[in-house]
């Protein structure tokens, strides 16, 4: 069999996964189905974007991860907007309107939206990338280790009786 050269790292990664597994038609078909499922979801998101004024863009150079383009031509990823909404959101007020929902359900729905906004064609886990970035800083790692080893409880946040 000839050596295969794949032009982009994206495709390379996906085909590498196929090669690393046993090369059976069933495996290849499974992987292709997974890729197509991802493509179909991104296609749906693109259609939604087109129906909602095209403010949210899914650009190939950003692996189709939803983003807005700022006045400085720099992308602002949609998941960061969701984080900002979460930062300023008063969940108690939402609960006033939806008394049948718990705090966890409402907060969970924000996490869900944030994850949806992180979808991309390379299937890069953005939080994983963030961990890698944070934990590569030895100062931060040291601080975290020190904090984790401090086992003395000085205050407890608990529901008032």
């Amino acid at each position, binding site marked *: *069999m*000839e*050596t*295969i*050269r*794949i*032009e*982009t*790292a*994206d495709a*390379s990664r996906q*085909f*590498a996964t196929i*090669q690393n597994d046993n090369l059976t038609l069933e495996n290849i078909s499974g992987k292709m189905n997974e890729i197509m499922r991802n493509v179909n979801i991104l296609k749906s998101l693109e259609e939604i974007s087109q129906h909602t004024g095209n403010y949210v863009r899914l650009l190939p*150079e*950003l*692996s189709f*991860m939803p983003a807005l383009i700022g006045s400085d031509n720099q*992308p602002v990823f949609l998941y960061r907007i969701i*984080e*900002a909404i*979460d*930062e*300023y959101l008063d969940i108690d007020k939402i609960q006033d309107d939806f008394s049948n929902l*718990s*705090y*966890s359900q409402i*907060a*969970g729905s924000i*996490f869900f939206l*944030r994850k949806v906004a992180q979808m*991309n064609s*390379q299937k*890069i886990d*953005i*939080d*994983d*990338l*963030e*961990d*890698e*970035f*944070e*934990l590569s800083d030895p100062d931060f790692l040291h*601080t*975290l*280790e*020190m*904090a*984790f080893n*401090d*086992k*003395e*409880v*000085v*205050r*407890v*946040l*608990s*529901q008032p009786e």
Partner: protein
Amino acid sequence: MCSLNLNSVINEQIESSGNQRASIEKKLEGLAFGANRDEPGLLDMPDTHRKRMPGDLREVRKHRVGYHRLYYSGRHTNCYYDACYLLIHKKGDNQAELDDDKRFQEHLINALADKIPARVLEDPVEKELKEKEKQEEQIEEKSWEKAPWYKKYWS
């Protein structure tokens, strides 16, 4: 309802977070209070287990709180969690954090833009043959050590 234990590190961080303090505390409470001994809550979500944590921090989990990141351990079955560190991101008033944020965003854009050089994939059968040949070469090299002249002069 489960509770959240704070050590002195995170307690100090919260107390010195200025006008964000009330909002951070409220959010932390919301994360813990939703769970009980029988039912997992937001701090038990599978996504909170981070695979990149080094060995001695394997127990540490991470959860996003608005812009901030909470590091903690524990589970709902104990009905308490131990919070150890809060990575506080203040937008706009800390240049170092803004720079970090910018660096991460650039890193992310590069990853998504696929700026990783193309790799050449090898035929797995050919690769296996090459590895075998390499191993055989190594064995051959070692066989010199068994030769009588080698033993005589070098051992």
